[in-house]
């Protein structure tokens, strides 16, 4: 089990962060009411300098400790480097949160009838990811007495590798299945159309030199040279 004190303080910090509230005096005031009443004025203040992204709040995840572990794991899978942003800056954790809150998280298009046999996971995608990110924190606590997000990159990679290889015990699902789903959803979040909350500012596409939702390449189909173009998103199809 993760250290309770750690989990609590982390979750509060993350809540403050996702509420758009600056850290500071408000913690002293404590209590949810003051946080909520404080929100509006802070948002107003924020709009002067940066635009608030109202879509970046949690739909599926309830505990910030879960979301923090998810965020750190996606960043380890797709890290920021000299090419450009990593998963967190691309909005991948929010992409995954939104997907898990909706039909994909609950496998509405999959066949989920019993009986499930050996090797099959009788769990929804949302349950697999939630259990998995909690196990990331639990394993981190067991091996390093820290939360997953507090580990060094090498430590994170080592633990994720244990999951990838199916070595971490999970309930009703092999940890390799969790990892494969997490990796797949991370790549989706990096390269989806920005309408889904990932691939922020089309930065994933730009790194990949992928031009996005273009309507036609008929004019350049025979071009010998590589053509780099500014990507377009579905928002331009309205």
């Amino acid at each position, binding site marked *: 089990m993760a250290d309770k004190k750690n989990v609590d303080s982390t979750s509060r910090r993350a809540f403050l962060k996702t509420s758009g509230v600056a850290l500071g005096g408000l913690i002293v005031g404590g209590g949810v009411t003051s946080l909520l009443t404080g929100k509006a004025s802070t948002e107003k203040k924020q709009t002067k300098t940066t635009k608030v992204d109202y879509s970046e709040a949690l739909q599926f995840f309830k505990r910030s400790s879960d979301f923090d572990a998810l965020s750190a794991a996606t960043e380890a899978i797709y890290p920021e480097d000299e090419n450009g942003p990593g998963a967190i800056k691309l909005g991948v954790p929010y992409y995954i949160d939104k997907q898990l809150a909706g039909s994909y998280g609950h496998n509405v298009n*999959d066949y989920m009838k019993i009986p499930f046999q050996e090797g099959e996971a009788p769990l929804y995608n949302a349950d697999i990811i939630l259990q998995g990110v909690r196990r990331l924190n639990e394993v981190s606590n067991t091996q390093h007495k820290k939360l997953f997000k507090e580990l060094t990159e090498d430590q994170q990679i080592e633990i*994720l590798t244990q999951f990838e290889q199916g070595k971490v015990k999970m309930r009703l699902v092999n940890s390799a299945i969790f990892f494969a789903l997490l990796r797949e959803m991370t*790549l989706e979040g990096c390269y*989806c159309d920005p309408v889904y909350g990932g691939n922020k500012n089309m930065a994933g596409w730009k790194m990949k030199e*992928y031009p*996005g*939702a273009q309507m036609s390449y*008929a004019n350049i189909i*025979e071009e010998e040279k590589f053509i780099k173009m500014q990507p377009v998103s579905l928002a331009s*199809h309205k």
Partner: protein
Amino acid sequence: MVKKLPKVDVVTTGMGWTGGIVSAELTKAGFKVVGLERGEERTTEDYLHGHDEVKYTVHKELMHKLNKDTITFRNNLNEVAKPVRNIASLTIGEGTGGGGAHWGAQTHRYYPYDFEIRTLTEKKYGKKKIPKDMLIQDWGITYDELEPYYVKFEEMAGISGEVDPLAGKRSKDYPNPPMRKTPSMKLFQKACEDLGYHPYTVPSATASQFYKNPDGEQLSACQYCSFCGNYGCEYGAKADPIVTVIPTAKKTGNFELRTNSEVTRVLYENGKATGVLYRDTRTGVEYEQPADLVVLTSYTFNNVRLLLLSGIGTPYNPKTGTGIIGKNYCDHHTIMGATGFFDDEKFNLYIGTGALGMACSDFTVDNFDHSNVDFIHGGQIEMHQFGNEPISNNAVPMGTPTWGKEFKKASLKYSNRQISVVAQRGIMPWKQHYLDLDPNYKDAYGDPLIRATFDYTDQDRNLNEFLVEKCAGVLKKMGASKIDKHVMPEHFGGNFTYQHDAGGAIMGNDPKTSAVNKYLQMWDCENLFVCGASAFPHFGTTNPTTTLGALTYHATEGMIKYLKKGGQLVK
């Protein structure tokens, strides 16, 4: 409580290519046709905002959803089959257009050898060349007989292509010139020519120019936009039943489309079909639709399942080899070859279509001597430029990690620097590979699911190994810096991802070894026709649609003859 409807001339079960072709041809001939479709009706307007990989490629917007039914799968008779649960692992079109909405639109014909495979193999190599349990058989129709109907399909769908010098004779050229060539295609072409092969541009049902078909339906010129296979075409440039045969049927005034209508049984009495039972998928209300002629026009799995659920024909028994329905099931979902990584060249790989590419037929069917190889048939060496989507295309050279720093770096570097050369293989039928009703898993209404039993055999492994070497050889000639050969797993894993399954209600010239005659008319039930790749006794090298389309055009002549005179069309 079943509501009985007034009788019609013809009822079809599914409005993809086969249902569309049957509806167009029979309504043109003056018959009243009701087309039942379990999905919704679509128009090109549905595809206007569709350039979305998550929605179409990842979440399978156009495909049949598995929440009410799926298929089950196992490798051999001793296993308990598991349901294919994840929609990402089972692609079956749904809604008007069916598979013809999401297809990649590669439109090769099969070869003369395919239609007389047993006769020609035995003649050339002797009976011993064919292993005991390999159930290849002649199709009951020859290439020459089918050729005019290939032309009919190609003219309807406006195929753009150039002649494959090693394919069967054509009575007419393709209706449209081939697709334009990208630099990667030219590189493949040159390499194949240097190796002495015979490359040609892959024929496609994405029109290379504006085209009006013989029924007066129009196709726009393809824009090479890359949102093609898995997607519907907003331009109406990819031939799809919704822009070709369905409007043709509607124009006659003899066609009625009923959507949200899922056929559950063929009604059968005294050796004849009396109609079908179907369910409104929204209300659950059941209807009986009587008809003079019933045509099964669903996908392979559902055609066979309907026959088995309705108790028509004798189910196949893999232990004794007796019975017919379900036999010769062939899965075509393993395409391997090699991937080449090019350090010094960069291609516009984000451009493409579902069929854009080049191929050569030097190693397919019996186009080369098989005396000294331990397999029959062959594969087509091909390369494609589909328009690489960013989520689905992240291959990195073997040995590179598949996530983390090194992965990111390599996947970005090679995203426009990799070309795969692959081989589509012919898949032979075996005694132990078949379809039947699953004893454990049911659909939402209590009917058993269809169960597929299939695995790789030595024939597959030996042929695959032979072809992978050829693919790698082409990439070497193309100048790839690093070549990774694809590795075939020990067993087929059950990913049915591009709707290429055949057999189960196979055609032939003998009621003892086939379910339908060359008009796809059931031997056991003269007013029931079963259209689709379910009729293929083996899976030919390439994509099935052109051949199943030609067979269906041929079958419609039989249906018209039957509606006028009755009786078995082949004695």
